[in-house]
């Protein structure tokens, strides 16, 4: 299973980026071989509108099934839901710590009501 994590840098030790669409990097962790891949999200960071949709496209293109992030916007939520990507929010610390917290069942799965972090 591939897990996408929003991060402020391009290594597993980078801090989680609490934003989804405008996250600096998207890190993809592959469970099957414990490999990390990093995707530069500069284009999403600088776009005027639709950053969440563009980021969702990248996550979907990587065939990730799960996303760990801080909070996401309504269009990103609709996009990820359509792509059948499970969203876990409230990720904190480094990307690696967020992954461990997810595996330990400490992250909450987003629902329509709270996915946007109260926005």
């Amino acid at each position: 299973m591939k897990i996408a994590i929003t991060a402020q840098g391009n290594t597993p030790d980078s801090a989680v980026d609490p934003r989804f669409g405008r996250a600096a990097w998207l890190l993809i962790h592959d469970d099957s071989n414990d490999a990390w891949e990093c995707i530069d999200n500069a284009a999403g960071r600088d776009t005027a509108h639709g950053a969440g949709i563009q980021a969702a496209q990248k996550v979907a293109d990587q065939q990730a099934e799960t996303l760990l992030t801080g909070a996401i916007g309504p269009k990103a939520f609709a996009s990820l839901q359509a792509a059948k990507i499970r969203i876990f929010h409230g990720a904190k610390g480094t990307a690696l710590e967020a992954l461990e917290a997810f595996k330990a069942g400490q992250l909450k799965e987003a629902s329509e009501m709270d996915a946007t972090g109260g926005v």
Partner: protein
Amino acid sequence: MKIAIASGKGGTGKTTVATNLAQLAASQGYQVAYIDCDVEAPNGHLFLRPDITSDDTVHVTVPDIDPTRCNHCGVCAHFCQFNALLCLPGEVLLFPELCHSCGGCQLICPQQCISEREREIGQCQIGKAGQVDFVSGRLNIGEAKSPPLIHQVKKQAPETDLMLIDAPPGTSCPVVESLRDCDFVVLVTEPTPFGLHDLTLAAEMVQLLGIPCGVVINRSAENDEATLAYCNSRRIPVLACLPDNRKAAEAYSRGELIAQSLPSFNQPFTTLLERLLQQTKHTGSPQQRCHP
């Protein structure tokens, strides 16, 4: 002759200037149209109180993807610069509010399975306020882009001697769309540091568009030295100074035209109209200064 009333900053008095000028010019026998292009918050109707004769829905085109022929290749989604399309393995999602109706996806689709459909974005109202022709747009709630509606609203304007375009605040796309094709721009400002800052931005925008402009200082008191100095340095004529007056604010709050309700405002507006007509006849005429 098309004159746009603009300002870098919201709440400086664009609608006050535009509606009072429209009414005054009509009373002097000019054929006048007032066009409310502030479609996100139109309020010219509160002062001119027009009888609306037609109320039409305005549409833009968005892609319509035939799901039976689409093979989810993703070319359209990766082409779209506005992120309006999302291609997933099983479907293509459209976010219509992000679509700029460029039609590129339709041209580029290898399956040729994209056609166009119409989407409602707002209303355009046409009417008559006394002798003034009235046109106004109203953007639907939640819409992100007003320029297509502003474009339609301007197209509905009747041919008149004088067209007064009430522009939205700021300096972004909706303002540029409102100012496009205008012969002259009136920049309304107020003599405060914020007013001067935003006037600077607006004046630079108008200069980029290559349209001659003049300034109206609203709520003018003893504090307009900095504004006058700026206009002087940039050779922008100051067309009028409307005095700061509590009674004007009270009349405004009742939805009255101040040039009508307060005799002391009749003169500044009459002078403003005369100067505007002069300015637009010979653009580039020497700078005029006024002191209340």
